[in-house]
């Protein structure tokens, strides 16, 4: 038979609270409260209560002096009645409307000496700084007091798996410190019993159970006697086998109950049969209850400390996130806090396609595979598990790093996640005692096998996430989402701020275009009217008038150029395929219109189609070609060449002339606003034309360069990207 079947099948179904028998180190009788008639008795009761004991008869004579006390206790709310009679201790409790009276031999310990030792223990306990110290002190003290070979303190986890957290002993039995036990080793109904009755004792595991006989009295034979609170209750044969396989002949266990829940056990074992008298057991019970109170206080204070620490961590993380440019960068600056926030061993931040890892984590690819799996689930914004492999089988490959995860989704639109990891718990187990020393264990059930069973149970599992840790993760998610929303709001504000200032700029340039242009127009107009009217003016006066007119004209053109330039920054570009041959032909036609009878030799090659805004590109051609015509006007003939080529996604165009050229030393100034390389009296111009050209080309994601040589000519080359081209095209 498989071990787990013994535990889970036989043991879990066994009605251990109504065994119908007791252990032989004491005797038990059942009395009717009304008249103290003996209804049931263990078969050995005569040896303890006297030969006059008989079923259906009155209480034995030994109890004569106690009859009134028992009746009074029964009327009271006291749970237990206890009294010493010569060398025996009597203990009474209620069960199913009846009084169960048990008797055991008293020990040699006096109450006085026990009290002195308990006081010593209380002092020792009060000096323990943490739970571990309190547990060790209690184990030591129970060991000293009872004389058991080994005293263990177990702690249950949330799933009722046991863990030996403290131990004291004389070395006669092997150490079980840090050993783990699966929940099945102590079945649910045993745990329920342990929660109700705090202390069990088996002085000799090889005992012969003593049956309890019932009289023929009405109402007692029908329902079995509930021995839940009996000290002498006979235990399950499975438990005895377990003890035998552990190499223990005697045991005692006491429940550590905290906040009404079975927190753990103090378990005592001896290799040989070992009796602990009632008084000493009571003292042990007191010790364990004191321990429970101490643990409760320490656990609560540790919880409080942890909460304060978590609040500090949350605060630090929040500050880091708000002061960084993005939440993910903020978290990356505090890797330790990020991991500590939920007590994880590692974390990964997945944001904007980047994966940033902290602590112990799976590889980048593995993290991405988790994200891929997570995003396929139509789930909540937070996902937590202690066994990722159970849901996501390929996670078994990295169970060592990520058996437990908490994942929080941070964006509906993008795969932005924060994931914490916990390793498989088996890999974190400390094994203080040497497992190979446990040689005397044999048979179907024993702790070593339990450990294996436990290992199997927790395979691919991490330690559980506590409610506090999950809520810390949720809080962090809310904080991040809040920060992201606030950043979006700030961005929105910035955008509307920009829009407002753009509007103001538009209004400004609108006003300039109306109000600044008008006076120049008026000066020019009236100067002209005056010139036309006054024929009597001398040459000097005419020169002055012309100068006034020319200056105002130049200023007017400057305003026009500036307006053009500023409008270009705001105007949206509509991209289309543009026939550059057509544009150039139009531009050449309009440029030579004002050139009278100049000799210009044009050489225009077929040009590739461009991708851009036709109106703006026309302006580019116009300014460049007009320049070529202007700066070559002293040549006869002027030679102007226009060419184009395609390279991949980029089209390039060039215009060369044989004009005055420029010194390459000043090429950097060529495209600046108001930068001129020629004197105004030689060549008219506003100094805006080429700045405008560069602005248009750059707004097309293109670029422009110029090459020149003084008195030889100049070449302008501009490149434009095609529709598919990402990034800037270089001329």
């Amino acid at each position: 038979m498989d071990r787990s079947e013994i535990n889970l099948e036989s043991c879990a179904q066994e009605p251990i609270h109504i065994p119908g028998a007791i252990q032989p180190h004491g005797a038990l009788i059942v009395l009717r409260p009304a008249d103290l008639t003996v209804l049931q008795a263990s078969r050995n009761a005569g040896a303890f209560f006297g030969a006059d004991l008989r079923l259906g008869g009155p209480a034995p004579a030994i109890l004569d002096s106690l009859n009134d006390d028992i009746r009074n206790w029964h009327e009271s709310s006291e749970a237990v009645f206890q009294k010493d009679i010569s060398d025996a201790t009597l203990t009474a409790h209620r069960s199913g409307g009846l009084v169960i009276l048990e008797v055991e031999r008293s020990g040699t310990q006096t109450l006085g000496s026990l009290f002195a030792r308990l006081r010593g223990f209380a002092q020792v306990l009060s000096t323990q700084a943490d739970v571990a110290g309190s547990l060790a002190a209690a184990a030591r003290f129970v060991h000293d007091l009872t004389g058991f070979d080994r005293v263990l303190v177990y702690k249950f986890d949330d799933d009722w798996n046991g863990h030996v957290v403290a131990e004291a002993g004389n070395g006669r039995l092997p150490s079980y410190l840090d050993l783990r036990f699966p929940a099945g080793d102590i079945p649910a109904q045993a745990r329920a019993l342990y929660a109700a009755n705090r202390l069990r004792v088996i002085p000799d595991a090889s005992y012969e159970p003593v049956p309890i006989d019932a009289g023929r009295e009405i109402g007692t034979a029908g329902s079995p006697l509930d021995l839940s609170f009996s000290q002498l209750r006979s235990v399950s044969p499975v438990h005895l086998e377990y003890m035998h396989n552990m190499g223990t002949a005697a045991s005692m266990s006491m429940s550590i109950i905290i906040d009404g829940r079975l927190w753990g056990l103090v378990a005592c074992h001896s290799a040989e049969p070992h009796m602990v008298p009632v008084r000493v057991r009571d003292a042990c019970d007191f010790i364990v209850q004191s321990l429970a109170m101490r643990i409760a206080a320490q656990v609560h204070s540790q919880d409080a400390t942890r909460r304060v620490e978590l609040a500090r961590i949350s605060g630090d993380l929040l500050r880091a996130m708000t002061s960084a440019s993005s939440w993910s960068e903020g978290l990356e600056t505090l890797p330790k806090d990020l991991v500590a926030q939920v007590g994880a061993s590692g974390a990964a931040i997945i944001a904007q396609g980047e994966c940033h890892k902290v602590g112990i984590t799976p590889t980048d690819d593995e993290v991405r595979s988790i994200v891929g799996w997570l995003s396929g689930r139509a789930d909540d914004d937070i996902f937590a598990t202690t066994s990722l492999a159970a849901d996501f089988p390929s996670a078994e490959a990295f169970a060592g790093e990520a058996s437990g995860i908490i994942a929080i989704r941070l964006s509906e639109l993008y795969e932005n996640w924060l994931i914490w990891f916990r390793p498989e718990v088996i890999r974190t187990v400390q094994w203080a005692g040497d497992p190979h020393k446990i040689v005397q264990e044999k048979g179907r059930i024993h702790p070593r096998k339990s450990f294996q069973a436990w290992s199997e149970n927790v395979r691919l599992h991490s330690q559980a996430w506590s409610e506090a840790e999950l809520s810390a993760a949720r809080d962090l998610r809310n904080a991040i989402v809040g920060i992201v929303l606030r950043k979006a709001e700030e961005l929105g504000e910035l955008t509307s701020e920009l829009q407002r200032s753009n509007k103001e700029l538009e209004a400004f340039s609108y006003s300039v275009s109306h109000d600044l242009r008008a006076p120049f127009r008026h000066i020019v107009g009236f100067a002209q009217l005056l010139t036309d009217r006054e024929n009597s003016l001398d040459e000097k006066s005419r020169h002055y008038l012309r100068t006034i007119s020319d200056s105002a004209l130049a200023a007017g053109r400057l305003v026009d150029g500036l307006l053009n330039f500023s409008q270009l920054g705001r105007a949206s570009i509509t991209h289309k395929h543009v026939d550059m041959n057509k544009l150039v032909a139009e531009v050449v036609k309009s440029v030579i219109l004002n050139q009278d009878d100049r000799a210009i030799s044009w050489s225009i090659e077929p040009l590739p189609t461009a991708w851009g805004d036709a109106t703006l590109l026309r302006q580019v051609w116009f300014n460049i070609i007009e320049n070529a015509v202007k700066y070559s006007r002293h040549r006869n003939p002027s030679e102007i060449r226009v060419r184009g080529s395609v390279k991949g996604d980029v089209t390039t165009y060039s215009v060369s002339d044989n004009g005055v050229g420029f010194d390459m030393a000043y090429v950097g100034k060529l495209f600046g606003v108001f930068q001129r390389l020629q004197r105004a009296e030689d060549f008219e111009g506003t100094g805006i034309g080429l700045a405008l050209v560069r602005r248009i080309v750059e707004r097309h994601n293109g670029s422009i360069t110029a090459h020149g040589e003084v008195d030889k000519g100049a070449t302008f080359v501009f490149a434009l990207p095609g529709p598919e081209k990402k990034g800037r095209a270089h001329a």
Partner: protein
Amino acid sequence: MPELRPILLVEDSPRDLELTLAALEKCQLANEIVVARDGAEAIDYLFGTGIHEGRPSGDPTVVLLDLKLPKIDGLEVLERVKKDERLHHIPIVMLTSSREEQDLVRSYELGVNAFVVKPVEFKQFFKAIQDLGVFWALLNEPPPGYRAKDGG
């Protein structure tokens, strides 16, 4: 030859007014030039209301309309004329300092017949006014039925 109906010039700037009148004068047009100094006055003239109530009948042959005007601006004058069944056929030429695209677009949306940015150079300005005057006052035929409705 079409009968000589007046040209309505709507201009608030006295200097622009003087320059425009000088230019029109040089065109030697026989048409009377009616001047309105703001949008409200232009509306009164066109609709025969307010100070122009009971004016002699006959619509202008063309309206030269400045864009920026006190009280009612040029665009609104344009809109009201083009939305009026009796007046919408009157040619309106927007004369403006503005090179702003938004004004141009809005004007054409409202049905302007021409949009002229006043050139800084007087010769060009002169030529533009001259062209406009000649085109709209002399050459442009009003739509059929217009004269009949007007009563000849």
